[in-house]
């Protein structure tokens, strides 16, 4: 366990020294700039828009971190041959994959946590500075704790995307891994449509194939509860639990596949 923690912390240190966290500054600037502009343009809707924009930006910035670090993490070690010295130490290849994943998820978590703080800070400032009548008229409180729920599901979704990126990086080049991961991310947003494909096609084979793909490919749409949170719509605990469980099970399978591929690989 200590070994895994050492490797994971080193991944985090690499991200910090590679200046990955600089994107947080960009995020904060974007959010504050947008809130100022929207405050000038809209009447009463600015709080909702800031929440929507903040959550979307969290998701997109997180996606870039997940994909761009995830695809290079293993590839870079192999390509630069730093893995030779590392694997000669008392660790297994499965340890290596799990620790790399844990380090990347830690980086993601720190990023999302800082973004969440920035979002709440902007919302807090707007509440203090805005007219009280407008705040009272909102569907949801300005500093809604359910924003954390939305960010939590974004985190699980991005942890899944990270696992996918890591899986591709165990055997593929960064460009191909990025293409595959982004491709799966986009497919994942519309995956639910495959489940009932038989309603739009006559061929049973095509319907069967679509159903198989539905189970094989990640279904990412359920992780997106931004609209529900922003508009104060109810979200059941069962839904959140099911979605998180689905995410965890999918991550476990993807990491298992990554470990299997990596364990058999020759480092020429």
């Amino acid at each position: 366990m200590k070994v895994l923690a050492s490797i994971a912390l080193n991944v985090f240190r690499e991200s910090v020294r590679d200046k990955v966290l600089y994107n947080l500054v960009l995020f904060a600037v974007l959010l504050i700039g947008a809130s100022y502009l929207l405050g000038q343009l809209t009447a009463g809707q600015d709080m909702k828009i800031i929440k929507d924009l903040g959550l979307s930006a969290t998701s997109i910035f997180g996606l870039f971190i997940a994909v761009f670090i995830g695809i290079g993490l293993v590839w870079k070690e192999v390509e630069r041959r730093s893995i030779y010295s590392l694997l000669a130490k008392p660790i297994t290849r499965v340890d290596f994959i799990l620790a790399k994943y844990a380090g990347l998820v830690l980086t993601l978590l720190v990023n999302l946590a800082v973004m969440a703080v920035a979002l709440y800070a902007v919302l807090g400032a707007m509440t203090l500075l805005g007219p009280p009548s407008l705040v009272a008229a909102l569907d949801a409180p300005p500093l809604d704790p359910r924003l954390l729920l939305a960010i939590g599901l974004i985190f699980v979704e991005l942890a899944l995307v990270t696992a996918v990126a890591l899986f591709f990086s165990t055997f593929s080049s960064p460009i191909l891994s990025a293409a595959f991961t982004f491709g799966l991310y986009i497919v994942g947003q519309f995956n639910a449509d495959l489940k009932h494909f038989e309603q739009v096609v006559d061929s049973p084979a095509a319907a069967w194939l679509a159903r198989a793909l539905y189970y094989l490919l990640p279904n990412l749409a359920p992780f997106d509860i931004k609209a529900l949170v922003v508009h104060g719509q109810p979200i059941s605990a069962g839904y959140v639990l099911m979605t998180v469980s689905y995410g965890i099970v999918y991550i476990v399978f993807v990491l298992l596949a990554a470990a299997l591929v990596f364990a058999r690989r020759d480092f020429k």
Partner: protein
Amino acid sequence: MLAIQTEDLTKDYAIGFWRKRPRRALDRLTLGVECGEIFGLLGPNGAGKTTTLKLLMQLIYPTSGSASILGLPIGSLALKRRVGYLPEHPYFYDYLTAEELLTYFASLFGYAAAERRARVTQLLDQVGIGAERRLALRKFSKGMLQRVGLAQAILNDPEVVFLDEPMSGLDPLGRRDARALILELRKRGCTVFFSSHILSDAEALCDRVAVLARGRLVAEGRVAEILAFDVKGWELIVADIDRALLTRFGAQVSKATEIAHGRYVLELPGAAAPDRLLAELTAAGGKLVSLNPIRETLEDFFVKHVSADADAARGPAS
């Protein structure tokens, strides 16, 4: 118990894009290395030295055959705690300092914080980069990286250490230090297995060597035996003589080359008696600069065996 044992160790790589075909990188290598000896694996580029080391470190898997180190199967965690490895042209995380890198690796061996600090400090001083401990590795020269590589290979006080081209990238001072380090390891009872194409290092360090060519073991033996050859000739450097004097010794000298005014390199056949010639030269006013016997070196041995293997591979028709 042998420190390292391989039995018919074979590795084929698949080459080609569509129609993959095997290319044999290592062919049925059977070797045994005694505990406490320095063993050199020699061969030209592409002979299979790095492949052998990677197989022993389980960075690649054998196509067939087996290997064990200290009686344990290769790749086991129990074994990894007892061995060290320096890869060829090592590369480390360039965002870390040398101290951070070694501390990180030490944590993988489970050293406690205080022990880790002491060990890392001692090792950095031992390999001569104590002053640069806080410098990012991206600023290190190739030779300095090689020193870091040596330090991380012996971080866990290993019983067996594998060094792939340990002298590569080192300047003469670095090579001297690396030699001293390897000899120090042997003194502590550590078995050293290293690959090299720098034959003088193998000559100076190894108890035994094996020569690989095209993936096959072509020779193996004690360096002392391999180097126990007759003197093939003598090389004499003399000063303050003139060409007229040299003509008197024409029959004894097989070749004379003037390297500066009045200074000559004389080559004498093995059967010649250099002391008699030397006495005559000094009596005529010449001065001796140096006298060296010309013996068959490991280089000759290496070339002879590799060439023989290449001839055998070409076959009688060619």
